[in-house]
């Protein structure tokens, strides 16, 4: 089966987020009543595997080995089949 895995990496609470803060300031200038802006990175990985479990296992490994630094990053994984 073919899969598309969306891996979203975001900063843990309390870590400096200047891009989000700057964006929030501008949104406020533009007249929006905004409390906060979080910024995250989304990687979409396309791969083939036998089962969803296998894909999730590989995606977890990818996050630990590459995409996320456990000191500052949280991550989520979403797996979808594709044709």
């Amino acid at each position, binding site marked *: 089966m073919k899969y598309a895995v969306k891996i979203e990496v975001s900063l843990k609470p309390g*870590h*400096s987020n*200047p891009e989000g803060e700057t964006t929030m300031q501008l949104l406020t200038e533009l007249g929006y009543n905004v409390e906060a802006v979080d910024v995250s990175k989304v990687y979409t990985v396309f791969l083939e595997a036998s089962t969803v479990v296998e894909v999730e296992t590989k995606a977890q490994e990818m996050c630990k*080995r*590459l995409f996320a*630094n456990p*000191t*500052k990053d949280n991550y989520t994984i979403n797996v979808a089949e594709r044709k």
Partner: protein
Amino acid sequence: MKLEDIKVCALRVGGTNCDAETQRAFQELGVHTEIIQVSELIKRRNLLDYNVLVFPGGFSYGDYVRSGVIFARHLSAQLGKEIQSFIDEGRPILGICNGFQILVEYGLLPGFEGISPVPEATLTTNEPAGFKCKWVYLKHENQSKCVFTSAIPQGKIIRLPIAHGEGRLLFPKEKEEEVLKRLIDEDMLVFRYCTKDGSSAEGLYPANPNGSFHDIAGICNPEGNIFGLMPHPERALYWWQQPDWTRQNQMLQYGDGKLIFQSIINKLTKKC
């Protein structure tokens, strides 16, 4: 080991900088130094021909994903065994700026239990945010373990430049105090940012230019042969590289950066 037998490898990829300055620093002190592309080293597989490995500064692989992580993971996948052998033999590794980020992402620093499979720390966005390119004061905290600062007395204040946007050293929040205790107890703290007179920066800008935990600018591993720091010693090799050198009341040949390169040379030639 004789001075003329020492061989240094300064490893580079796209985005590396200051490799030429690093080579210049070692060569000024009489040490043969080669700038090697990682792809070349992977082809030759001759890392153990070198006595010192240096990861210079820069923005390797465009800082994609996270500063230093692609270089680190590429190297561990392609040359992991050679790197392990290099470390097992106690050969010295230096990481400057992006090189420090690479060592942290590789799991070599702090490396409490050897090479960690996941990074034990991060060098993240400066606080206050922004790319900082300025000269800073550093207090040498190491007693004797770090081979790259063996020629620097403990407590000495030195002056080096920084140039980074992501140099804030942080450890997992829940482990901060435990990590700090280990760094101190195991003599792994090497440099802390300080004021001109050597007083503690107390986490405050501008003495601490990036908000690093405990004002830490550089650490070594428990064995003392792997050392990473955010400031650039190779940009402070000569006295005249200081921005205010003409206004100072003395004129020396070398700047404080020389001490880092001289220390490892002294160690390898057994002068200290």
